């Protein structure tokens, strides 16, 4: 008699929360890195170490470019605010 089995599994989610602020650039970058590179628990130790080092490097790069993107976006919004007659608001935004 043939018996074919299959099992359903549910993965694990992580929950992160903040108080009176949004996520920081570093926190967003960490989430991105975790999606880009997943290191399996059962991977050999030398591979895990190499992957972890690579992950740290990717994190640094993503942090840099997210900060750059945020800065550029604020510059654009500040320019629009100045054009609309809100120079002080624009200055406040640029000082964040």
């Amino acid at each position, binding site marked *: 008699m043939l018996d074919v089995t299959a099992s359903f*599994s549910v993965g694990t*989610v992580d929950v*992160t*929360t903040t108080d009176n602020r949004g*996520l920081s650039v570093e926190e967003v970058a960490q989430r991105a890195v975790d999606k880009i590179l997943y290191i399996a628990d059962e991977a050999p130790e030398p591979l895990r170490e190499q992957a972890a080092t690579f992950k740290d490097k990717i994190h640094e790069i993503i942090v840099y470019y997210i900060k750059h993107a945020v800065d550029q976006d604020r510059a654009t919004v500040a320019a629009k605010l100045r054009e609309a007659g809100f120079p002080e608001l624009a200055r406040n935004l640029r000082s964040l």
Partner: protein
Amino acid sequence: MAITTAMCTSFKKEVLEAVHNFKLSGGDTFKLALYAISSGGKSSTTATLGAATTAFTTAGEVASSGSYATGGGSLTRIDPSSSGTTGFTDFSDLSFTTATITARGALIYNSSDSNKAVCALDFSGDKTSTAGTFTITFPAAAASTAIIRIA
């Protein structure tokens, strides 16, 4: 009253009936709703979620706050895939901003088809954001980690 991480039994049956479509293009709309098990819920009843859950329920759901509206947030599907002998699918992370929320777990359900339940998720403790961001980070879309796996 409790929330237990489980694939809903009704979902397993419905998969065999081709009820749910997780494809990135043209798939159903899946939502994630947050629940409290004590006083954090918007109603006096607390949530009981697990394998026996068959559909979205408002009992014990957290109240609307910030970008969280009752009924929960829509999930972005990741195309189903397979690796080895495991088929799997996943979702992108979901964030609710400027939200004051205390939640103990969540329910993923299919809002395209009578709000049928997919799976219940236990956060293993109350998670609280105060006028901040409440983020649910889904696991990597891989055979040993993805949120929904059939092996």
